[in-house]
């Protein structure tokens, strides 16, 4: 049952990533996806009797999520500097 909850959280993160129109919305979706995936590893560790390994994987995934969030923020700042807005339609401007 709990694994279903983790899967639904991950799935909703995917929905949020696809449907949002702004870069901050996309980052919210990624955070939800990271929440779900962390939960999956922790619960999978418990169910397969590798509790500590599951916790350690969850720890690394959570901090990895923080790292990608920082990169997302810096890209958002750059995009805002170039276009004065952070819409996903303007993301191509970062290639310049």
């Amino acid at each position: 049952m709990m694994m279903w909850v983790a899967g639904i959280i991950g799935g909703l993160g995917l929905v949020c990533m696809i449907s949002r129109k702004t870069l901050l919305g996309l980052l919210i979706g990624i955070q939800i996806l990271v929440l779900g995936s962390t939960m999956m590893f922790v619960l999978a560790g418990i169910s397969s009797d590798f509790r500590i390994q599951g916790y350690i994987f969850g720890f690394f995934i959570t901090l990895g999520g923080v790292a990608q969030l920082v990169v997302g923020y810096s890209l958002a700042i750059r995009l805002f500097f170039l276009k004065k807005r952070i819409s996903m339609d303007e993301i191509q401007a970062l290639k310049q």
Partner: protein
Amino acid sequence: MMGFVFAIITLFAVILATFESQLRRAILALWVAGVGVGAIYLTVGAEFLAIIQWIVSTMVTISFLFFAVMFGEYNAPPEEKKGKGRLLVVLAVILGAVFSAIIGLGSSHLPEGTLKLVSQADGLGVLGRKLTRDHLLSLEVLALTLFLVLVGGGVVARSEGGES
């Protein structure tokens, strides 16, 4: 029992964070979701992760609020979804449902008794020793990644000419 209560609260918050058109409410819902996931960790005995999750969720929410205000998104009018936008949302929901079903059906059931309190083997000291002895290289790579992200973020977010 408490685990399921927390799971329901978390699911409700995640649904709100996903579909709420106002960014302000979505960010606050994300914080509730993070706190709820931390509470679920607490019920399965992962106290260390619960504390980490609460700290990270709170810091992420604060930074989201800060950036939303800075970019003028905090009080922006709700996004309107018409035609193609609605189709995209429906397709995204279908994709998300497939993803959830694969995870839910493909995973094994949790054994009985997982909701008991943490045992001696799951204590913070054991986890700390495990991290520093068996996963030291991973810890160093993570530290280096966070350091590079910090420096790289500053470089990417530089002004046009890069003088400052």
